[in-house]
């Protein structure tokens, strides 16, 4: 694995992006459009990057973030959400959430109304932390190690402080499999 990160990253221009101030619906469309664009590849996009007015990445939106944004939010759900901090078992909290979702009043929450779709991405995007970034010249070996210890599905690739692309775990893993196969075959060949 002598390659470096920039050989495997998806450039920012090929990635699903939206802008600060966009609505949840616009973010979903961006994700869908980008998914169509890369239909020929093995691994589709699953994250929308949020850009500011200078095209700098300021946040990320995963499918999970989008689903969480659509969850019903009431004073009651806020109470349930914090039960795990107060020593309740995850089984207990899950059962309370299940009961709450079965409540007729919020039965159709997965088909959100305009109010939900008009929520601004700024309000539910994941803001970036220091360990989200990796330099484009990092070796793939080191990148694989970074994924392992940072426990992330993607890292933002930087060139002199500017974000230029996204390195996805799936792409690194594909390279790893290829390298493993090559090593295995090389060992198996007769001298």
């Amino acid at each position, binding site marked *: 694995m002598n390659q470096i990160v920039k050989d495997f990253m998806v450039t920012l221009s090929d990635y699903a992006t939206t802008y600060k101030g966009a609505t949840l619906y616009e973010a979903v469309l961006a994700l869908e459009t980008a998914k169509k664009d890369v239909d020929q590849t093995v691994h589709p996009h699953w994250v929308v990057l949020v850009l500011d007015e200078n095209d700098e990445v300021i946040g990320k939106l995963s499918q999970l973030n989008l689903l969480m944004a659509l969850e019903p939010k009431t*004073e*009651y759900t806020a*109470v349930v959400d*914090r*039960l795990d*901090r*107060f*020593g*309740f*078992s995850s089984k*207990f909290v899950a*059962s*309370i959430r299940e*009961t709450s979702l079965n409540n007729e009043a919020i039965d159709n929450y997965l088909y959100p109304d305009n109010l939900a779709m008009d929520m601004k991405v700024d309000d539910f995007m994941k803001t970036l932390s220091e360990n989200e970034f990796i330099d484009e010249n990092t070796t793939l070996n080191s990148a694989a190690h970074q994924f392992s210890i940072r426990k992330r599905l993607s890292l933002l690739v930087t060139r002199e402080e500017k974000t230029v692309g996204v390195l996805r775990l799936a792409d690194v893993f594909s390279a790893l499999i290829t390298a493993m196969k090559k090593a295995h075959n090389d060992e198996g060949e007769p001298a």
Partner: protein
Amino acid sequence: MKAIVTLFERILQRVNINLRELGFDATPYIHIIPIGQMIKFYGFYGITPHHPLNFKFKNSNLAGSYFLGRCQVNNAILYKSDIRGDELKKRGDIFQYNDYKIPVVDNEEIQVEDSLLIKTLVHNFSHDPESLERFFIKDTISMNHSNIHGSPCEGCFIGAFATADLTTMHDCVIGNFAYIQAEEISHLNIPHGTIWVRNPGKFNFYYQHPQEKLNEYVYFSAGSPPQGKLIDFVADRKEAFQRVFDVVNIEQLIPVPSSASLDRYSVTRGQTTIGENVLVAQRAYLQNASLGKGVNVQENCFVINSNLEGNDVAAHGAKIIEADLGSMVFVGFNSFLRGRPDNRLTIGENCIVMPHTIIDVNGAVNIPPDYLVWGLIQSEEDLETHSISIEEFTKVETRLAMGNMFFEGNGAAFIEAFQDRIRHILKANGAFFNGAEKKGHAQKNQYISFNTIQPYPEGNKKGIFPTIVIKP
């Protein structure tokens, strides 16, 4: 007054440093406190033959505060607070913690250091198995009408009408009107109106007061003083206490049986009657109250136009108005139970009213005997999601959810823990005194001498009390 201002800022800084991880800044909450008030009142302490005596006060302001037992105060401001050390452990006691029987090697002492306590009650003993002889309150701010009950704490901010009960706390913010009984917590920001009783491995009870409705009763945000119906209720009766603090030798206005104790710093008005073995603590307010045998009215309680049949407990800060309580009713800390003259509140015998319960009704409400009650109740209908018969609750083996109340664990263990504690409270307070044995606070606290102490009247140290050491 330079010294007291410096002290004030020093305490604030230390608390903020401890709470930096939670992003909490106590500054706007306490800068509304008029420091001028801190120099107006004397401090006082009690002496009895029943409690080990050892006071040490250093570089502190103790305005209007009361001390009993063994207590050390360093670099602290205690405003109209009660530091009641009559339940501290004694040398030779054995402290039971889980399977450990831990010997107590010295008389326990309350140690308040670098802290600001406003109208706070400190009582009971340290339940921290790691600190048996030292009940510490360090780098902590507690606001109006809060209770620190058997809860050593370090680096905490305790909101108005909040209670920390039998819980060691490190670097926590306890919201207004929150009640916490959870053994040990750290780095938690507890929302306003949270009621949390947890015994790990056995049970976990959690209730959340609805925020908007709670704000009507207790509201305290940055930059403005505490507000709400509970604050108004207490403020409306503040003047009644003026006389008991102004007069040195005060006469009891009503007959008190020889087995009962009516604290000289309590207020009685109207047709109030006191039964055998009754204990009425300091800063309690009784007006047209009928207290049957063994009733216990603790600090900062109000009982108005109400009948308590016998062996009832009004825990610290409870308020009972226009109500009739059967025997053995427990009313938890800071509860506010208000009926109306023509629509009285009735609570049957053996009921447990959870700490920080608000029952404020215009129509008549009748709670049957043997019920567990919690939360905010403003109508008879609210009882459906805020009460359950103790028998039903005892059958809970895994979990229960009713409205904003969540319970996980064994219901029988939870009820048993409460009932054990109620029996302990009654016993400790002398409710079961038979004329010769089973003496408690009601009998022992009759013989207390009170001494007053005063701060520097002028100069840089104005408001600071001189270093004082009081020993037997």
